[in-house]
């Protein structure tokens, strides 16, 4: 901890974001979403309501979908965070979910899309072969005003099939859920 830091308003945090180690000094009242967007310039995470309803700001924290607007940046200290920018492979290949969204018109304005994708990455990690109802329940906390959700559901089911297909690339994005580690935190 930097001795000059006023611990009541600013603190240093260290976390992993999209596979990269990040150390930063943050204002204690800044949300994780604002930290990602404005301090790390990862603007793919969007804010739609800032009161935890719309789900646009959803990111993965230690593999779990988390509202970036309802978590403070300091609470992410020591965590592994994945944002929409971290979903594609290192060579730029779209994640199967991203590709399926493109193929099935799962996005229009694109504003809810990052939160949808991160939420669905978690779903497919937990449940690689969901049925339609399970997909709908998974995204029931993510609002979309453009699509009526159907194309998102169809895209997700297609992505699940693609990821199950023989020879499908193993995706490292879905950070393994570690209940023990979460409990210890």
């Amino acid at each position, binding site marked *: 901890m930097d001795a000059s830091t006023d611990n009541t308003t600013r603190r240093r945090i260290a976390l992993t974001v999209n596979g990269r180690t990040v150390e930063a000094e943050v204002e204690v009242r800044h949300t994780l979403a604002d930290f990602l967007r404005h301090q790390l310039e990862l603007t793919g995470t*969007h804010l739609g*309501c800032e009161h935890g309803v719309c789900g646009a700001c959803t990111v993965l924290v230690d593999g779990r979908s988390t509202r970036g607007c309802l978590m403070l940046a300091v609470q992410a200290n020591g965590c592994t965070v994945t944002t929409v920018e971290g979903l594609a492979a290192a060579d730029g290949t779209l994640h199967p979910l991203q590709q399926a969204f493109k193929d099935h018109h799962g*996005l229009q*304005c*694109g504003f809810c899309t990052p939160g949808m994708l991160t939420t669905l990455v978690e779903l497919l990690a937990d449940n690689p072969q969901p049925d339609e109802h399970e997909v709908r329940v998974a995204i029931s906390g993510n*609002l979309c*005003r453009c699509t009526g959700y*159907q194309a*998102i559901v169809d895209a997700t089911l297609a992505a699940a099939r693609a990821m199950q297909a023989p020879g499908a690339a193993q995706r490292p994005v879905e950070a393994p859920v570690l209940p023990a580690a979460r409990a210890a935190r």
Partner: protein
Amino acid sequence: MSLAAPIISPARSGGSGETLIGKSVPRLEDDALLRGQGRYVDDIHLPGMLQAAFVRSPHAHAAIRRIDASAALAMPGVRAVYTSEDFSPHLVTDRLVVGLPSSHYKQDHHRQVLAADETVHVGEPVAIVLADSRYLAEDAAMMVEVEFDPLPAVSDCRAALAREAPLVHRESPHNLLAEFDMTYGDTARVFAEAKHVFRESFWQHRGGSHSIECRGCVARHDAMEDRTTLWTSTQMPHAAMRVICEILGLHERQIRVVMPDVGGGFGPKLVTYPEEVCVTLAARLCGHPVKWIEDRREHFIATTQERDQYWETEIAVDDEGHVLGIRGDIVHDHGAYTARGINLAHNSAENVPLGYEVPNYAMHVKVVLTNKVPVTPVRGAGHPQGTFVMERLLDRVARELGLDRAEVRRRNMIAADRMPYRTQLKARGGQWVTLDSGDFPGCMAEALERADWAGFPARQAKALAEGRYLGIGVANFVKGTGRGPFESVTVRIGPSGKVQVLAGAAAIGQGTRTMLSQVVAEQLGRDLSNITVTTGDTDATVMGLGASNSRQTVVAGSSAHVAAQTVRAKVLKVAATLLKAAEAELEIVGAEVLVNGQPARRIALGSIARALAGTAGYTLPGGVAPGLEATEQVIIDDMAFSNGTAVVELEVDAETGGVHFHRLVFVHDAGRMLNPMIVDGQLAGGIAHGIGNALFEWMGYDENAQPVTTNLGEYLLVTSTEMPRMELFHRETPTPINPLGVKGVGECGVIPMTPAIMSALEDALSPFDVRINQTPISPAQLYALIAANAKP
């Protein structure tokens, strides 16, 4: 399925390979958006940028006595606080005068840039605070002391018409903003003579658009050029530029308005807002770029809303259910200011008889001020209300005469062989409303067939025997789309060989860039990767109208098509000269022109463009004018009318009032489809919005016009688990009034949903004789209706 001759035939289009028209090509927009590389307004970071927060009125109506910003200004990181008094020396006028013209206004009430002495709705901006961060700006906004003197407010637009009602604006003579009649035929006679006259009252409530991205803007002033750029989440950048120039007394080169990626519009972003003027002026005054991002609460109290209307109607029919006439009164809630015009009330009244033979019609409309957020178009723009009323009236006729609901509609629909059908209605610009094309009865018949309407009574009876309440409902709609007079599109090929499309159209998530690329590529090489599209930039396109009225594919698509054809003709003419070939032998393939069968003889589009850029002292090839570009504004004054039919089958839980959809069939005719995938997407979003209007979205105000639903926990948007699977079907009746044969689709899904759902709910609850003449209806309200009529 209508199979009229295609308006664009392969023989008349350019390029090699398969046509791009009618193909569900992947959207060009998607890759960046999926990677989190979209650039929305809040993603813009500029050096030295300050963050703005607005001080807003907490009162629905109040006098402003005093504003003291000293405490706010003393806070660390706070750079400026501007009030109306600070701004007024820099304003030519302190009002945003934007209302569409009409002779029906009785009084003008234009929005203030910042409220000066009086505030007339909760959320009206009173001051703007600039600080180093948004957190600090919001802290400081709470420290600006505004001394308000509350005044009586009026919330209900019917109450506002009472003689003793509080005045929405204290200096006004009354609260009636405008009044007009939409009348034809002789309703007095037919109602006097009709065998059957049925009376119905309707209430349709207001809601918001609730794009997931709220509004927001960033302004940067360049003192060297005396020019300010405003990036704003708008649907109409050119209108914003004009309004800001007028208010600030600037000429058109001094303001540039640019749309970044926009996270949804759905109507309210077509309005130019006080905040956009304030942020632009603040940036000019403080010398720093300024950003303001609306939060969701502000969106509830400061972004325009729509749909509150009260209707008293009568329908006259003969014994067979043929409509003889419709008449009635509409009281339309206008909110506190004119932020767009009286077009919504006009649309509602015009929409009622649109799809049917209604020989006599008289609607008296009152547009009424209330102390609420101004009312401007939300997806559907008045049309859903008109369709709701017409379809509910037809259901009433069916019930009274013991006829099938679909049969009553069939008997009154305008037949396909009567197209084009000149109605007796006049559009807001004074031109006759003429239905250009369509097969309305055929569309409904297809929907009924696909939904197995005929088999429903058996399903219903079986369910009822099990104690379950199933209902089915049908609703038709007709919607004018593609409002003119034009959209401006430039197609240009430069020495790079890239085809640049510059459009006054506005991309707000509907795939506008993909649509324009398809239309232009069809003429110029059929390689979508060789097309670049710029929309929503007043520097790129001098004229533009932007996104509204389901218009872009119709008007911008048509201009893009004609401009691309013009450029194509020039390409071929010059290539023929340079390649010493006949034009008929040439083919544009990707970024090159080939002579048929002789791949060795070819020239790049970029080379042609370079030749037409001119070389000093040399003549231009082909005897043509310089440059390889064309700008078109195809003028289309008449609307292209889309139509469709929704059939909803649902179940009501009589013990909770819960509604569960079983099927939702939607058959739609938007003329020729350029990209069926995108058409499906537009319809699906509209349908979801319509379901929200029917069952979920309630923008509450108390009797003092205080909003009581100001977050997304209180105001419910439909979620994935409430949405049924939508079965979408298309018919393609090309319109003859534009060169692509296209009609608009952006608003169509929403329009028939409320009447189809209410019809189905009444049908399901027929054992309880439930009547629903309002939107929305909540489970609690449904349960109350069931309980009130439950037989002991």
